[in-house]
């Protein structure tokens, strides 16, 4: 009885995992297809990769996606960390209000945030393009950084910073040498969330961009109306990049731990 239950749950998880990975494997396989078809595999070829590298709009969209994601991550990580530290010292009412507004971009349907920003930028007369895209990405990334740094600040001993100040550290030194190192894990995970949020964003970007500035998501959306196997090549490259990044993020801490362990043992 117990045995059959175990097998049952194994089968269930296997089906689930096939369901999750089918589209990913499918994309990678068909990116090497020699024919145009999205349903029949005609043989191995790299032609879609070649086409992709020669397609300037595709390469541009990859460039914009990476640049925007890096800049948005940098700015939002710094701004979010500063704000989170400030909030942890603010009075309860101010903190409550800021946190409520901070939650809005996370809680609101993305399409609502998108159209709000679209109207806002138009009202200002700003030309839609790189700048508006970057500003929008910073706007929706900061809340995630604040959310991931705040719990770390809560578990921080407030006396430590005071002790540093008493011992003659300037507030800046107390901040950089005492507070920041202790909340570093929160900052790093906030930065990682910000990066992937920006890298993957479609809905908000779609409404605030213009003048030919597209990210990968927008490109896939506009290209999907016609069959274009180059999309599969592009997708496969994204899949590989994300896999490598995730492996690094997950493996580096384990390696570090092992290194420290061997240090102790030696």
């Amino acid at each position: 009885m117990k045995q059959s239950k175990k097998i049952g749950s194994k089968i269930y998880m296997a089906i689930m995992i096939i369901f999750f990975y089918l589209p990913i494997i499918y994309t990678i396989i068909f990116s090497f297809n020699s024919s145009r078809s999205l349903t029949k595999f005609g043989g191995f070829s790299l032609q879609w990769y070649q086409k992709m590298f020669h397609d300037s709009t595709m390469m541009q969209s990859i460039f914009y996606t990476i640049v925007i994601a890096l800049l948005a991550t940098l700015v939002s990580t710094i701004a979010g960390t500063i704000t989170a530290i400030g909030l942890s010292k603010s009075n309860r009412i101010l903190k409550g209000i800021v946190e409520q507004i901070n939650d809005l971009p996370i809680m609101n349907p993305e399409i609502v945030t998108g159209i709000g920003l679209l109207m806002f930028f138009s009202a200002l007369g700003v030309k839609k393009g790189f700048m508006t895209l970057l500003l929008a990405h910073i706007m929706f990334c900061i809340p995630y950084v604040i959310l991931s740094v705040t719990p770390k600040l809560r578990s921080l001993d407030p006396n430590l910073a005071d002790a540093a100040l008493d011992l003659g550290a300037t507030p800046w030194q107390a901040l950089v040498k005492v507070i920041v190192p202790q909340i570093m894990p929160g900052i790093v995970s906030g930065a990682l969330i910000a990066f992937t949020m920006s890298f993957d964003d479609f809905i908000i970007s779609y409404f605030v961009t213009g003048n030919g500035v597209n990210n990968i998501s927008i490109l896939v959306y506009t290209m999907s109306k016609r069959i274009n196997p180059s999309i599969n090549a592009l997708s496969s490259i994204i899949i590989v990049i994300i896999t490598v990044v995730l492996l690094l993020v997950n493996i580096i801490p384990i390696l570090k731990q092992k290194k420290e362990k061997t240090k102790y043992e030696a």
Partner: protein
Amino acid sequence: MKQFKNMTYPYILWISIMIVVPMFMILMYAFTKHGNDVATFWFTFENFTRFFSDIIFINVLKQSLYIAIITTILCILLGYPAAYIIANAKEKNKVFLILLITFPTWINMLVRTYAWMGILQDNGILNNILSLFGLQTKLLHTDFAVILGMVYNFIPFMILQIHTSLTKMDKSLLEAASDLGADKLQCFLKVTFPLSLPGVISGITLVFLPAMSSFFIPKLLGGGQYVLIGNVIESQFLTAGNWNFGSAISLIMAIIIMISMYITKKIEIRNSTGKGKILH
């Protein structure tokens, strides 16, 4: 230490401009006529009456609700067993399974949804498998395709939420229940399930909200003719150019989402003050 609180002020200015003003603009546009600007502001309900008096829009709203509700229910029904199995797996497998489930969510949603277009095509893999059983049918550009795309994209959120609440659970409660004579099923129904409800509720929030407002999944998997409320908003802003009507529709959608969330929370509270009370 007090000087650190000054560090909040730049962000307060930033959110006032980048979050509060755009939200306010949606409200303003929703209640004004097309072609108005700030100078000729004139309050009107016209956009709302237009929406609710047109059978086409009412049907779109109904269809969106139907798709979102079915998606949410399927995510619970399919996601709960998965979360339960993971929560009861060996520690080593647990980490691995969680990684397996979160990994696809890190890959662009558009990219993954686009792949389904190929899989679901008339002579795609899924239909080839179905044809072995003589069941070949049209899959792409149907309700089924749209729901499948939504379940695919949103179910990881549900699984992770339920899993978190299941692992937080105090295992000794189960021992106590079985010591007191409860069988496996009773243990599940009276202990495990009520305690996992908060996870189910936050899972519902994470699934229903994007399902209700999604517009690229219906466009890609439902085809150009398939219209959900998100598509109406998109077209009002990007093709029809009627921002007032578009704002009003997004306001209606946001209110419906808020009401649904409120109802789900109410159900949770009633459950936790009813039978679940014994546990607190």
